[in-house]
């Protein structure tokens, strides 16, 4: 499904970032980093209009020729970014939403782990598996 999944901390440093074609990791890092600006823009725009009642799913952040970047922001301003191959046309908004929901649930589990220090990179097998599940289907 996805080619890259990233979790970005509130302060915009990466908590978790994984991509499928590992040789092009750099590109995805750039892609995800660039998308943060759009995320910020969207958050601020949403914040103005709707106040606290906001949708976590930010939708398509920006498309590129090869990839589509979707965003999601938790209430604690942790950002999820999913990059999808543009050629993968079977993915609709709903699938992306459900992916984000799954990711959020797993992320919440990680945060609930008392041995996890918030703010540290995520090192969780369960989380890894969830992400792998989302990444694996594309191959």
């Amino acid at each position, binding site marked *: 499904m996805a080619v890259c999944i990233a979790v970005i901390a509130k*302060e*915009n*440093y*990466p*908590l978790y970032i994984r991509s499928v074609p590992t040789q092009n*990791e*750099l590109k995805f*890092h*750039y892609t995800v*980093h660039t998308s943060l600006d759009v995320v910020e*823009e969207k958050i601020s725009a949403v914040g103005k209009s709707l106040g606290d009642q906001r949708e976590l799913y930010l939708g398509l952040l*920006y*498309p*590129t*020729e090869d990839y589509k970047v979707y965003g999601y922001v938790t209430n604690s301003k942790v950002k999820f970014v999913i990059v999808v191959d*543009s*050629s993968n*046309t079977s993915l609709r908004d709903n699938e992306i939403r459900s992916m984000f929901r799954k990711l959020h649930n797993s992320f919440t589990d990680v945060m609930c782990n008392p041995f996890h*220090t918030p*703010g*540290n*990179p995520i090192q969780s097998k369960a989380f890894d598996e969830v992400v792998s599940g989302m990444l694996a289907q594309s191959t």
Partner: protein
Amino acid sequence: MDSAEEKPAAVIYAMENKPIVTCAGDQALFTSLYTSLAQQLPREPMEWRRTYGRAPKMIHLEANFVQFKEELLPKDGTKALLTFPFLHIYWTDCCDSEAYRSSVKEDVSRWQSSLRSHGSADWLIIVVDGGDARKKNKSNILPRSSIVDKIRGDFCNKQNDRCVVLSDPLKDSSRSQESWNSLLLKLRTLLLMSFTKNLGRFEDDMRTLREKRTQPGWSFCEYFMVQEELAFVFEMLQQFEDALVQYDELDALFTQYVLNFGAGDAAKWLGSFCSPVLNWSGLLLRRPIDMEKRNAIQRGSASLLDMRSYLFSRQCTLLIFLQRPWEVTHRALELLHNCVQELRLLEVPVLEGALDCWVFLSCLEVLHRIESCCDRAQLAANSSHTVGLWAYATDKLKSLGQLCGLVSRTGPTSEDLNRTVDLLAGLGDERPETGRWSTSPYKKLKEALSSVEAFERHYLVSWTLAARQAEALLAEALRSYVCEGWSFPVTHTRKQMGECQKLLGRSVDSLQTSALLAGDTNLTTEERTRFCGDVLNYAGEPVEQGGAASAKASLDMGAFARLTRIRFRPDGATVHSGAALQVSFGFTWKNGKQHASKGGAQGRGLPGTVDFEAAVSPAGRPASLSAGPPPEMDEAHDRSPSDDSLSSAGVVCKNAHLVIRRHDSGSPQDAPRTPRGHAAPIGAAPATPVALKEGARMLTGRRIALEPGDNSVSDEPGTYTLRQLSVTLGNVNFVLPHIYPSVQYHVYSQEPQLTVPPPPHLLLSVPSEPLLAGLPQTVKFTLLTGHYAVRKGDALQLSNSDGMPVLANAGCTARISNSGAGTHALSVQSSDKVTSISLPPAPPYHALEFHLEVLCLIPSGPERTADERLTNGEVRHRPRSYSHPDTAMSMSIDCPWSIYSTLLTLTFHIPFKTEHSLLSAGNRKFIRVCVHNVSDSDFTLAHVKLAEKNGPRQDGRRRASLEMRSLNATLLCSKRSVHCLWEATCKEDLPSSLECVFSASFCPLPASHTLYSVRANMLPLAGERHCRSGSLCGLEVVIARLAEPAEGQPDVDGGGTDADGLGGSKVLYEVADSSSNWAVCGRSSGLVSMPSSGSWAHKVHIEVMPLFAGHLPFPKIKVLKYLPHNVNTIQPDADSQVENDSLSLLDKTLDDATADTASVRSRGSVQSLGEQQHRGVALPRLDPFSPGQVFNHSHARQVLVLPANDDHIVEVHAT
């Protein structure tokens, strides 16, 4: 509206973009009313109720009134809507029934029939009333209403509203106005009705057509034309939203087909869209309708790009009508991405780079289009919408440049040029619309692709032309990446920056970047080795003459290596000035896993070692966010200026402003550039550079082993803190700007010092023994050389004093601490006034120790005043106690390092106190002298004598004879007294005063602690019970050392103390028989080595032969101390006899229980056994033990010796 001025020449647009309304009947009448009609029709909006639940809309209606012609009526099957006449009007101003009947009725019915034949039911008959001119013919005038009624009756069966009366249209009256309004309302209503009906029918047809799309032979292009017709109508009605919907539906349908194609469901008609792309001239948004492409679609010969381009151009036009230019940009980006994907999906053959051209041109075209309909301020405010297109265009141009070899250094190859030509061919000719602009996208691309220079001008605007700017931009990006902890982008940006810096020729910066990259774990080993090679290459370059200082590049060491440890040798990190302090630095070389750290074998927590923890910020969390810079703590001392005493001490955080600072994002922390390679001492001492010498070499390509360098330290004493570390490698300095925690070492300086016992360390271990006056005492001199190096020939000049001669003896040795070479000869030369001690050479900061034997003469009793003499015989001595020294002797010593003499004070204690008293027993007078031993030693007194002071008188007579009466006690134990009693017998009268001199010799009592036991046993020959005279028998001697001397008792077993560095002691035994009873056969003496401590026994076997029979005493067994040659010996001087001490040092073994152990042997005097010691030559010698130290168990034992045989002759001498 923008499109208004650019009307295409196409047929449809030649007509007014309005619904067609035909006019039949009286043309002249219509012409007269046309203007006001066309003006007034769109004046008021009309609600349009829609079918299919679409929201009603208010629209302003316009119409294009044309003369009715038969041809205008749609033929069957024609789907054209634009040319469709929505309403047919018949105009008449007939008011004459006759005329009506004769001509008008006929005309109307013909008109009606032709309408009917084409199935058109949208018609209206307008009867104009009030042409005054026409009322001239009054005869035939019927009331207008009757004509209307007739018309209604004839044509409008039950549709009375189809006939409208317009009254006095050219008059400005209320009646006229009213009739106009009702006419317009009617017109509008009918028009809308017609629209609803016809469009509804059209839509139904269209839907039907769409439902057939699964059937073979269905063509999208045909359907496209149909639905576009609808869109045109909506556009015509200014319902752009609805028009857009039509195009969007077409777009979605097309997309779906393409996707289905990808999924394997290929529609036949799609085949035409899969033809190779031959033209990539980009979007064309200038025309409202690109007829060229539309025709191609109509013909079914359009390519995918044509189709998309046309669709988008229409959408764009509509969106701009809708004042939504920003949606255009978004849709454009989406379209461009989508097209690229679709071409890929459909596997359409495309020349490499053609799509890039198309995208580039399209992006610029869209942007131009947007710019043309917005003002600058709007554009600037909405740059976020256009930025994507700009970026996309830049990307594409970049890839084109790469493709055509325009960015390569060597310029394009012929292959590149061919490709360029092909690409340019695909662009086609420039469109006339943009031809007049000098900056059209077409021209831009063409120019850019044509030459390297032009390409650079167009593309590299942000690169080479403004490389400085680019670097700044990269630096900013880098800062944000670093700040936010994105390591991959950081690495990549650094790489770009390095290239930029190389381009700019900023070698130092590029070097810094290379150094950082060389330590970057995101890069492969090869890359890192390459960057490392860059640095090393730079380092290896020969330093330019003259500019050596500036040519040295300084790099932050943190990129390359991590300081793991600093180790000081000596451990305390405290050295005297001039000494070598070895500082070892341990590094972890970041390039690779291994690390070569110097001193790695040492465990942690060693003294003098500082281990540096890796500054692990929580992994992943950028340092700037987690902790900021590490605090640099430092000690601070505040010393009062007057006496340099410490008034306060504390801890200072030197970079508090950085640590405490708020970490707002985007504030970069600039690495402070500070002077490097300096160790700045704390306090007032000026900063002195410490030169570091390091050698570096590469080990196996990835390790740097830093050899520990000698740290040459300045001579300024003080505390030095290692603040920065600079490793110089060729031209490159690797600088560690801060060493934290701070590491210090101390340098001190010391003046040479000559001290006299007790040296401090002895004070601690052995209770100090005081020096005793009257006996030769060994004084230990300790010379701490301090910063002074004792050279050969340096001598100490001791000025002799009368009261304390220096007993110079040969063979004095000095020991130098820290030098393993044992002892050094020390020559002592005495002259009358000066004793010169020439010192052996000694390095600075060593201790030189030597012993001198001095003798303090006991001062004779002071002359007493007459009145004291008799009554108080007590010699005035100060109370004896060690805290109150008796005699302080000062020595003045001239030292070579100082112009001043050193004054040393030696304190001697007089061991005795005497008092005398005169006792009477009847007439007899006794003089009692009480000698009180106040020292801690035991003494033997000898030659106790009391003599009249002035000697015999001139007449030879003594005034009194003194006779010793009392027990002449010779043993005087510590703290005891001995009383001597003399009877003074006077030949004459008792003199009024008698001055006597009491004198006694004293010598310390030898130690009596039993150290060795000797047991002897006589072993007869085997088988014999007794020894026989004349035959050999064995003498078994067991020499056993008893347990350790008691605590505090100095070790006196001779030769074996630690002081002279011998491991054990040696004892010489000797079997001799002085009484000629025994003959010793074979070896009579031997050396026995003993370990240095503990009980120990040694058994020796000696062959002896009794010479006589009978009970013979055992042969004598002597045990002697064996002193090796290097033992310090003192040859006492002959003049050591002092006034009241007749003790001969030559034949007495002095007690050892006095001073320190070092003086033990020196006391031992000499030559007891045959070997006369050679002056000046150190030979081994033997010392007897003090009495009592050796106990002979077999002393005076006897052994029965039988005569040699029974039949021997007994000589009997009888007289």
